[in-house]
């Protein structure tokens, strides 16, 4: 297998983007990515597009709309879907293209336009992330599944609502420093704790955002990477794992087994362990999900995730800085774009270009992206050299 590097990054503004269509959002990210790499679209061999839902944008063949709009035809474009992990699966697919030798330069785009439909409809669509055939008659929604994980974690390990709110405080703090974030404002612990309850124990500020946005990275083979970038970021490990559709068939609700398995594979491939990770972006679709991710990725012992955030060990100057770009919580979660956006943050950190949010001397970074309630998870490890 060939070594593969990220040689270009382009992040669009996340938010309620009523000013831009799915196609325009994509163009914004692709243009920024190509400019960053100093490469023209003509040089790119193929493209992978991550879009999770046709129903948000009310469009069939959204990937064709995208490659048409940026004038990529007749070269290959391959659409990938993996619910909320779509972006990471697109990156993995792009990596496969280059690692196999099929292409030397591959554009990976993640995009989602979620606000074309009202919040209630968007949440209803995501609620089908459970199993509509069996669970829908009981009034299930997506936040409710994570609320069940939170209650199980609280009952088993004594995790508290305050600790979950601390995740929101941290991620909003970093989101307010990230110009691409959807909600660039800080939140106090008290405000997070007193926001209205969505599904107990999760309150408004425990939930991530419904967001429009796009992100793009350019992947290159080793030979091409050296001619394009002085600061290539290498993809050192990739892990992808799956689990049952229904949470009731999972061994436990206090852990996401697919995350643990994806992490195990990625650590093994990269030849590193949790203690080697200098900076990480994890899937904080809800605050409890970040706490569970600390444990599943090995940043702390099982059950100790709440204490890790309480000790501020996941802040920029902590033991393992996590989601110092604002995370899904504050940066926003445009499903298809999220995994690609995570890879962009890690690339910035490893290039030393993260500004006020920079983790000192970051050499090894990790992204963790979960689809649905844990039906799929992708973990990627990146290195500066």
């Amino acid at each position, binding site marked *: 297998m060939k070594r593969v590097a990220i040689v270009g990054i382009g992040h669009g503004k996340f938010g309620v983007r009523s000013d831009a269509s799915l196609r325009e959002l994509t163009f914004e990210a692709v243009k920024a990515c190509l400019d960053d790499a100093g490469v023209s679209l003509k040089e790119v061999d193929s493209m992978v597009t991550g879009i999770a839902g046709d129903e948000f944008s009310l469009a069939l063949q959204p990937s064709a709309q995208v490659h048409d709009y940026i004038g990529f035809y007749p070269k290959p474009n391959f659409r990938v879907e993996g619910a909320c992990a779509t972006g990471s699966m697109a990156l993995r697919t792009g990596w496969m293209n280059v690692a196999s030798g099929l292409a030397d330069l591959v554009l990976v785009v993640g995009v989602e336009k979620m606000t074309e439909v009202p919040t209630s409809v968007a949440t209803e669509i995501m609620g089908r992330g459970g199993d509509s055939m069996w669970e829908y008659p009981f009034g*299930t929604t997506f936040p409710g599944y994570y609320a069940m994980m939170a209650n199980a974690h609280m009952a088993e390990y004594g995790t508290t609502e305050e600790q979950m709110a601390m995740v929101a405080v941290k991620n909003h703090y970093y989101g307010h420093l990230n110009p691409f974030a959807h909600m660039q404002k800080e939140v106090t612990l008290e405000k997070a704790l007193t926001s209205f309850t969505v599904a107990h124990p999760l309150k408004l500020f425990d939930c991530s955002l419904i967001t429009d946005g796009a992100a793009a990275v350019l992947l290159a083979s080793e030979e091409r990477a050296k001619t394009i970038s002085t600061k290539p970021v290498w993809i050192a490990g990739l892990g992808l794992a799956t689990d049952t559709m*229904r949470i*009731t068939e999972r061994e436990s609700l206090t852990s996401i087994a697919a995350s643990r398995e994806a992490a195990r594979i990625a650590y093994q491939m990269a030849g590193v362990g949790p203690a080697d990770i200098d900076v990480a972006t994890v899937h904080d679709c809800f605050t409890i999900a970040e706490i569970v991710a600390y444990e599943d990725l090995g940043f702390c012992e099982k059950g100790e995730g709440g204490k890790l955030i309480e000790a501020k060990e996941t802040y920029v100057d902590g033991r393992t800085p996590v989601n110092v770009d604002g995370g899904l919580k504050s940066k926003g979660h445009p499903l298809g774009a999220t995994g690609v956006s995570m890879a962009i943050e890690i690339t910035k950190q490893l290039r030393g270009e993260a500004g006020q949010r920079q983790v000192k001397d970051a050499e090894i970074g990790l992204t963790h992206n979960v689809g649905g309630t844990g039906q799929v998870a992708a973990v990627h490890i990146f290195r500066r050299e």
Partner: protein
Amino acid sequence: MGEYNKPLPNVNDDSNEFWAGCKEHQLRFQKCKVCGHVRWPASILCPMCHSKETKWIVSEGKGRVYSFAVYHVAYHPGFENDLPYVVADVELEEGPRLVTNIVGCRPDDVKCEMPVEVVWDDVTEKFSLPKFKPCC
């Protein structure tokens, strides 16, 4: 009582026997004749050994709350009048867990590990939903 306006079960060859059982106030589960795995939801194949040989067993309808969530926001208009309502992951004594509602107590009183038993909600002429209430 007005017309039932919540989502109804989606019945197909896999789920037909389960919902027919509910109509008769029986919780029916499949037990694989080859490997003995008791499964929910129903399916043609055993997910453990892929055998089609199966028999239906009837659950006693007793179990415990593994975890739960108290919904304060409804995303389907049919549930608005029920707020706050409880969705739970209930583990039955026979093994399978299912997503259901906890009724017959205040939402604040629901706790993980709480013992519960099935209670039937005859929502339409065709469908009865298995819900659970606290028991000793």
